[in-house]
């Protein structure tokens, strides 16, 4: 099992959700996060002049999938999230030790 953590643009959540769904992945967890990469911050306006916002709002999508499904899932997310501009985000793949379905108590691959 692997966990895929994708940091994406806020406005790309909907295309990413759809891309995952089209590939048969319905379960996901999302959170609102702040961060920055090479894009650094963006300027916003004060009453006169501007100030820099260092950390930008992003969405983190977390999905846990079977090892064999990793390439397909990563591809789906990357396709959905891409604009080609700086700030499109990153995808991380992490090993997962175990999983438990709370309702039934099933564990391991059956639980995801």
């Amino acid at each position: 099992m692997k966990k895929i953590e994708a940091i994406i643009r806020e406005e790309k959540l909907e295309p990413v959700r759809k891309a995952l769904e089209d590939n048969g992945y319905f379960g996901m967890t999302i959170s609102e996060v702040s961060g920055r990469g090479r894009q650094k911050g963006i300027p916003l306006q004060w009453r006169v002049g501007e100030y820099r916002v260092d950390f930008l709002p992003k969405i983190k999508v977390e999905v846990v999938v079977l090892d064999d499904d990793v390439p397909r899932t990563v591809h789906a997310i990357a396709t959905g999230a891409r604009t080609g501009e700086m700030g499109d985000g990153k995808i991380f793949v992490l090993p997962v030790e175990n999983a438990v379905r709370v309702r039934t108590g099933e564990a391991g691959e059956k639980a995801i």
Partner: protein
Amino acid sequence: MSISSGDTAWILISSALVMLMTPGVALFYGGMVRRKNVLSTLMMSFAALGLVGLLWILFGYSLSFGTDTGGLIGRLDFIGLRGVGQEPSPVYASTVPHLAFMVFQGMFAIITVALITGAVVERIKFGSLLLFSALWLTFVYAPVAHWVWGDGGWLAELGALDFAGGTVVHICAGVSALALALVLGPRKGFRDGQPMEPHSIPMVMLGAGLLWFGWFGFNAGSALTSGGLAASAFVATNASAAAAAFTWMVLDWIYRRPTLLGTATGAVAGLVAITPAAGFVSPVMGIPIGIGAAAVCYYCMLFRMRRRIDESLDVWAVHGMGGTWGAIATGIFASAAVNSAGADGLLMGNVLQFGKQIVGVAAVWLFAFGATWVLAKFLEVTLGLRVSSMEETVGLDIAQHGERAYGGALR
């Protein structure tokens, strides 16, 4: 003279309108600070309703409007509202109860104290601010109000015009704010360019909206009657606010994009500038006064930021300089045809009136800056003005008040 029910109704309503401006300014400022300091910022203004509301009745009104002493200050004959009753005052607002005039003036004193707090947000010690407010009301506001509006006050005798408080309220608050901020020093991180992001611009707009609404009482109420002059001041007020909001928006647009924060600020600048002029100029003159206000305040704010002075929410740029422009503009655009108690200005060929306005502005500038500087220095060496560095980092909401604005992270 007997009491007019129409005038009395209008002055009482106006008093309530001006009262609402203080929560308005609280929200206007509260939205512009970081979220860890929003309650502290709101509290600084709201506390003035309690503190100044009391002091005004006890002795503030008497110092401002009591029997004149040398043109400088009122005597304590009205202390604790002694002799201030349901009958009109013999010298002020002769068609409304003396109590109505007193409470109307009290609302002005409250908001003037609240205005200053924008300069010192996110770092001042609350207790010191309260003591400062009490001392400032006594030693700065009361004398200046007496000079300009008191019977026998020296600027009133000179003939300097201030319809609703361009000098008394706005120059006084704005210049004092600058002096207090200079003594207090900048917020931690300000000089390093750390972003101080406004946490709720919708809150700023709500505050600006309440200010605009309440300002009709402030300016049109200052006619002290409910007739044609009140209507004239009302229209001039709206014209200036509209012109300044629109101008600021255009300036924003020229440099970058039209912002709500800028447009709301512009409206306030326009309201400030028309304040001394409202009942002395023809209503349409609100337009040039408003356009001028947006330009003056915009570039003063830019100047303040380039000098890296942390007068945090620009009380000086908006109120001090907007009030200065308004007081001078009164000397330019005034017309005795609008208000027989007023005078003609520069455009009507009256250079002398223009000169009187300059004297009024200069006197209030010098006195407010000097006296506030002394008060601030006194508090700095006695109680101390600043919170500790740790408290400043944590935020004043928790450090000074033990509460937070947006709790309940866990449902």
